Structure formats: C-alpha cells, structure tokens
C-alpha cells in the first residue's frame, strides 16, 4: 500500500489521505504527525462496564459535541468498512456468495465479534473524543437464515431510487461505521479489529475479527465533516480552491440542524425483537464540485440548496453562519415548494426534502459526510430512519419529480451522481453480533 507523500501535502490533507489509505503503515504515519501536533492529547479511555453504555448502537448524539447553537456535531473522521462472513465460501467482490455458499454464523463467531467490539469500548470512551461505531447488516446477510425478518423491521434490498441513476448495491454482509474526531483513533480501531495490533489505547486485544469477517478493501469508504476540513482538501483534483474556509461539507454549507434532524427516538424501531435498533441507508455519490463553485454564484447555490427565498432575503450567510438551529425553511417555504418552482424557476433541496416531514418532524437522522475517496469529491450519504420506506419517501420528496422545474434548478440533483446504495439493519447493541432473523424465539 502506498502512503501519501508527506512533503507534498499540508498536515491536515496528509492525515486525511492516511485515513483514506488505511492500514498499519498509515496508522503509524498518522500517529507520527498527530503526536507532534495539537492532537497529542491522550484519547479518553473506555469502560469495563458494558451496561453503562446505551442500549442503542446509534446513540451518538448525547456523546457528541454541540455547536454554539446546540446542533449536534458529527465526529469529524469516518470510515465505513464493508465486511463479509469469512465462514462463507469465498465471495466475489460484491460479496455475492449465491445461495449455496452461505452458512449461518456459529455461536463462536458471535462470541468473538462481541468480545472484539467490547474491547473497542474498553479502549476508547464512547464519544466523539474517543470512538463511536455501529455494526449494521444487509438484507443479503439475513438471506442466509431460514425465516425472514419480522414485520417490525423494514429492510428491503437496495434499489435505484431515481430514474437517472444506475447504482451498484451493497450486497456484502455487514458494514462497520467508525467515527471519531481523532483520525488516528478511526485508523487504530480498524487496525485493532483487522490488522496486527496487540493493544489499543493501552488495552490488550484478546481477539480480533479476522476469523469472522473478511474486509472488502475495494469498497472501503472514508470521509470527514467539520468546519475547515473540506477547505483542506483542495489538493484533490476537482476540489476547487474556492471551497469556503469554514465550510463543514464540501458543498460549502452547514447541514444537519437540531430542528431539521429526526431525534434518535424517532428513528428507533419500537417493536419486535429488534426494538432499540434502527435502519440505515448509505448512498455514495460523486459531486461535480468545480461546477458548483465555478459556474454557479453564491446566490444560485443558496437558491438551489436552501430555497430561492433564502437567497433573495440573504438568510444563510457565507456557509450557513446566519442560521442557528434550523435550516430556515418555514412551513410556508415547504408549502410553496411547488409555487417556488414555477415562480422562481428554481427550488431548494432543503425546501423539497422537508416536504416529507410528518407533523412537522423530519423522519431522517442524517449522518452523512464528505469524501475524497478515489481522489475526487463526493458524499457518503448515511441516514438513519425507523424503516427504509421512510428513506425512500424522503428521497422521493427530494427528487421532486412532481415539480415543474428544470433538472439543473431542481435542488442539487444536477450536481450529484449516485454510484452505490446499501440498506442496513443496525440492531440494538445486545444483538449487534451476527444476529439471526428471529432472535429470542
């Protein structure tokens, strides 16, 4: 594995590049630079008492930083690690094994998985300064079991959701999502589970996941979110110098406000054996960022991302700094999406997507982040919701096929190119290790 050239990159760009490359060598290089930098603080340790941790894997909000407006700040660095069961006959790159190759996981595999994950929790505080993570399972994983998932779990196989896309699908078995403000922690945690480390943050590793899961390196995804991170990526082709200095996402604006996000309660499955879990949709997309910044002006960007009213009344500020804990999309703004399309010839992404609110409450908890995987700008759009059907409904609202507006002015559709989609069940923590379709029965 080739490491990025330290001399050619800023420190931040270098660290980002290391997270993207992954692996032991990247980790030690990362440690080298972060130790003599401002990240040299020790990483807070985890807990020996698993019962002190939340019952939901997706309980991150309480353990995350908040900005001055009280909005949850997603941890800055992310890795999405695709996994297939090692016990299966060697799968192809997509993780397809066919019906014959799949076997139900053994009780030993379950034990090993749970032990390894508990080690992570002992090593690192469950927080943005330590590590938060989830382990999710695809519909393909559950296919190996006799029965099907209970009705209380809405987890269809992924499919194309717009007429213009032709995505590949996540058909491997599981996805490990690692997140931390510390890039070295994201790397070390993955190395601890799959590489040849013996300790993590001073905790001895009793076991790892190499016997249970195979990683699909070619499908590994990484990313970042946080003010300043996108602007540090201008070494990447297609990431223009004009990405605003304070932008938390590559597209240049704040996103994920307290009042435009579902609560964790809202997205939690409330009945059946997987109560306490949630579903996750991950779509990975390219962004034509040089067009967004190079050919549209700020007014046009605000019109397309928020709404034409936001642009006309200058409600947003350069990167969303004028907004507090809401996107500023009002009930009026939502109701007038259709009229806005006709009257302004442009309709905002947030304006459209918020049409899918239920009694004023957004059904999705978005935990998406920007990426330069493959050395080009993109977004890994990760959203939690009680059932995948809700994601599909919101995505339809975002697509806005009902709106009388040109494709280029229909929110941000013109700039996004969906390459992959995957659906996952994130079981409650108690069932996170290789759950069957019908636990407790």
């Amino acid at each position: 594995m080739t490491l990025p050239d330290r001399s050619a990159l800023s420190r931040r760009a270098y660290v980002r590049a290391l997270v993207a490359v992954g692996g032991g060598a990247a980790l030690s290089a990362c440690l080298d630079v972060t130790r003599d930098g401002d990240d040299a603080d020790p990483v807070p340790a985890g807990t020996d008492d698993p019962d002190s941790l939340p019952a939901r894997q997706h309980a991150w909000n309480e353990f995350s930083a908040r900005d001055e407006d009280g909005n949850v700040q997603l941890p800055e660095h992310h890795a999405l690690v695709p996994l297939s069961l090692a016990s299966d006959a060697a799968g192809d790159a997509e993780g397809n094994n066919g019906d014959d190759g799949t076997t139900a996981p053994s009780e030993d595999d379950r034990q090993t998985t749970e032990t390894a994950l508990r080690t992570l929790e002992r090593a690192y505080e469950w927080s943005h300064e330590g590590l938060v993570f989830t382990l999710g399972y695809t519909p393909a994983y559950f296919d190996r079991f006799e029965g099907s998932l209970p009705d209380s779990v809405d987890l269809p196989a992924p499919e194309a959701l717009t007429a213009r896309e032709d995505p590949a699908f996540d058909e491997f078995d599981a996805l490990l999502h690692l997140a931390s403000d510390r890039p070295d922690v994201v790397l070390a945690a993955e190395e601890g589970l799959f590489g040849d480390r013996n300790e993590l943050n001073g905790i001895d590793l009793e076991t790892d996941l190499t016997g249970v899961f195979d990683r699909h390196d070619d499908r590994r995804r990484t990313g970042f979110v946080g003010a300043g991170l996108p602007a540090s990526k201008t070494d990447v082709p297609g990431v223009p110098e004009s990405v605003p200095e304070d932008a938390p996402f590559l597209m240049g604006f704040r996103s994920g406000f307290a009042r435009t996000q579902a609560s964790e309660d809202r997205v939690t499955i409330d009945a059946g054996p997987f109560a306490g879990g949630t579903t996750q949709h991950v779509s990975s997309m390219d962004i034509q960022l040089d067009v967004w910044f190079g050919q549209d002006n700020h007014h046009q960007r605000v019109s397309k991302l928020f709404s034409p009213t936001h642009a006309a009344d200058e409600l947003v500020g350069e990167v969303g700094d004028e907004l507090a804990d809401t996107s500023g999309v009002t009930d009026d703004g939502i109701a007038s999406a259709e009229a806005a399309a006709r009257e302004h010839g442009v309709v905002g992404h947030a304006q459209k997507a918020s049409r899918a609110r239920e009694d004023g409450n957004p059904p999705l908890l978005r935990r998406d982040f920007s990426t330069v995987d493959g050395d080009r700008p993109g977004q890994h759009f990760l959203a939690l919701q009680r059932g995948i059907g809700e994601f599909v409904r919101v995505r339809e609202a975002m697509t806005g096929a009902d709106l009388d507006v040109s494709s280029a002015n229909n929110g941000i559709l013109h700039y996004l190119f969906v390459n992959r989609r995957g659906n996952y069940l994130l079981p409650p923590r108690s069932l996170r290790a290789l759950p069957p379709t019908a636990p407790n029965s």
Partner: protein
Amino acid sequence: MAPDDPTADDSAGSSDRRTAIGPVLAPATDTTTTATRRTLLSRTGAISGALATGLAGCLGLGGGGDDEEQDGDYGGRQPTVTVEDPPNAVFLPTHREAMRVGEPVTAGEFRFVPMLSYPHPFWTIAGSDDAAVERETPDVGRGVHMMITVQDRETGLVVPVDEGIQFRIRSDGERVGSPVSPWAMLSQEMGFHFGDNVGLPGDGTYEVEVTIPPLSVRRTGVLAGRGEERATGTFEFEYDDEFRDQVIDGIDYLERDRWGERGALEPMGAGADGSDGSDSGGSDADGNAGHGEMDHAHVPYATVPAVDAYAGTRLVGDASSGGASSAGADGEETAAAELPRSDDAPIVAVLFETDADADESDLARLAGDENRTQNPEQYLLVSPRTPYNRVPLPDAALTASIERDGELVAEHELEQTLDSEYGHHYGVVVSGTGSDTSDSESSSAIRSGDSVIVSVDSPPQVARHQGYETAFLEMEAVTFEVPDGAEGGDTGN
C-alpha cells in the same frame, strides 16, 4: 473586416469582466458586488485549481505556472472578447464558433450528435433576478467545451428540455474528473443543446459515456410513450494540437461595429457564404413547419413551426407590447414581426377546438391520451421562441389568464409539452365534458372576444451563449385577443 487580433482591442478585452456582464446583469447591491468578486475568484480557482494544480500535479503534467495557466493548451488564442453594453435583446456576438462535429451516436430511442470546441464563456441561470444569472468564464485553456444535441430517432425531434443528461469521461479506462451534468443551453448557431466546459488532464484519446434519463416532459402524438427508458451511448475524441488548431483557426470574427447589434447568427451550416452581411434575420419566414429539425451537415437544430404553420385559431396579440416596438430591427417582414414579444421573445398562441374540422385531429393529439375520456374541447398552445431562427424557449413557467369583459374567468398553468407535429410548446386542455379534469376551473371554454393573458412566472431556465444572455429574462405578460370564428366550448356540445 474582422480585426486580425480582436483580443488586442482594449475596449473589448477580457480584463474587465464586469463589462461583460452588462447592465442587466450588473450587481445590484454591495453584497452582490462582493459575491460577484468572490465568485470571479472562485472561478479562477475552479479551473486553475482543478486542472493545473490538481490534475496536472497528480498526473505529473508540467508545473502549471501562472503563464501556462493563462494561456493553456490553446496558447491564449480563444476569443475572450465581449460585447460592451449589449441591448436587452438578442444581439450579434463577436464571432462564429468553430467546432468539431462527431458522427451521430445511437442511444436507445435517441440519437445524439457530439460536438467539441474550446472552453467557452456562457451564462448559467437559476431564477429570474440579476443575481440569478452568472457568467462562467473559463480562465484556463486545457479542455473542451463538450456538447450534444439529442434527437428522438423516430420523429427526428430535437429534445429541447433539461432532463438531467450526464457525461462520464474516461481515458485508457480510467475515469477523468467527476461526472458532468451538461447544462441545457441556447446558442445562436447551434440552437438548443446540452453542453459544459470540461477540463482534461492533457492530450490524448477520451471516451465519453452519455446517459439520457427517461424523459419526464409531457409528450403527445407519436412521442407519447417514447423515451421512457434510460439510454446510454458513447463517443470518442482526440484532444491534441490538430483539434485545437481546428477549433481556433475556424473562428470567424464579425466586423467590430456589428458586435452587439440586434440580430442573430444563422444556424450552423445554414448560410454557406459566411459573410458578415447576411447573418441576421435568420430563417423566420421559411415556413419550415416540419418536425422542428433542420439537417445542417447532420447537426440537428431545434426549431418550432413558423407562425402560420399551426392549424388552429391563432390568437391575436398586441405587437406593440413587450418590447415589440423595436422589433423591426433588421427589417424582418414576416408574420413573426406581428407577434407580441416579451423581453424580445415572440410568443405564438393558438387555440385548437373540436368544431373546427381542420384541426380536430390536432386537438385530440395535443390533448393527449390522459384527457381522451373527457372529450376535450379546446387546447391552448403557447410557443415562445427566439426572434430569429425560431428556436424554442424551454423550461420556463407560463400561466394563461382568461378575461371576459374585464373579468378574470379562469387561470391555467400551462404545461411544457413536446408534440410530434408542433414540437415544443406550453399547453393546457381548457375544457372537457368530463367534469373531473385535473383543473376544475377549466370548465369555462375560451370564446371569441376573450382576452388571453400569457404571463411568464419564470423565464427560460436555460444557460445562454453569447448574444442570448440579456434577452428572455425579465419577461412581461403579453395579451392576446380571441378573434371571431373561435366558437368556444359553449357551442361545442
């Protein structure tokens, strides 16, 4: 005579880009001024950052010093001249483009023609006010302006609406840059097409995969039910000195004193003599009502029918309104000159009715299958077009208000439609004997003596090449009268 080196002309040089924006698009407030300056900077960043620094750096292509960024692969020979104080109307640009035209490519039910030129300036639009228009200025010359014109294979009709087409570029099997959603664009020579400036890392052979999503625009006649599948097609091109010489050497400058004059270049391939004197006026009156296609060296050109080619009752507009006072420019003496204009766009309005034998089949076709069971009685067709060459103006939002004796009797949102006979227009089924039409207000038919006021809720959201960037933006409503002889639905039962 065209100047030998128009870029040497200080007054029209590229150094002051604000001049280029012109009075209509000039920043209105201090904040927009800042934004404009900042986006100018960002444009520089976008092109030089992505191309020179990024790709070039990664692929080991030269250092990309300032000079090199300025001149790029084209040696700074691309026209950067601008028209000072252009009129708020369609005007003659500084030059005719040269381009390399590829062979037509089949993609499902479509066929498209690829065209390549040097990176161009153009204007993007998202809305209708000044700040909603932005000039894209390619500052570095490594790459191409990549264009396609898409046709329905069966009818030959050019697809003139923005449906989300995508380009994916590869070289030696490796992806080059991000995918691209080309803009829906209007240019005087090419008419409606899709295009964008696309950066390239260097000389070589490139392959472009074009994806055409299913059409979502309302379609009638033979077109109904066509274009429902996503289609892809691929073309290849060489990017090298020969290409660059071809598209630069072929540029044809107009005489300096004609820049900015009201008028338009003839469609590509139309006027073979190429002299500056014959380039305006276009083909207004040639009566080519066909399928909206003109075959110029196999580049299809989207047109709408001439005024008198519609079979229904033509509504009579007030030609002195909406900027038509100056419509006599360039001495066009056609039916088009009698059309009312809105920000220089002539607008045709035609009523199709059941009891006019001649157009009954037109009515059934235009009303579409979805309205068949309702016994449609009237269809109102509205077709805004460019003042020269009859290029349709798509992706606008139009409303027709019907007034009788000064009272508003109905208001109809018009729906953008592609018809296999009449091509692009905005239309609405006005009345039907079935009662549950989608628009319940439509029960009252349009009668002779009524006024039909066509208002433009938002102007054509189509990017513009030089000469179109100041027209069709602030579009006033135009009023038509329904002449005698249009009997109206009241007698139609």
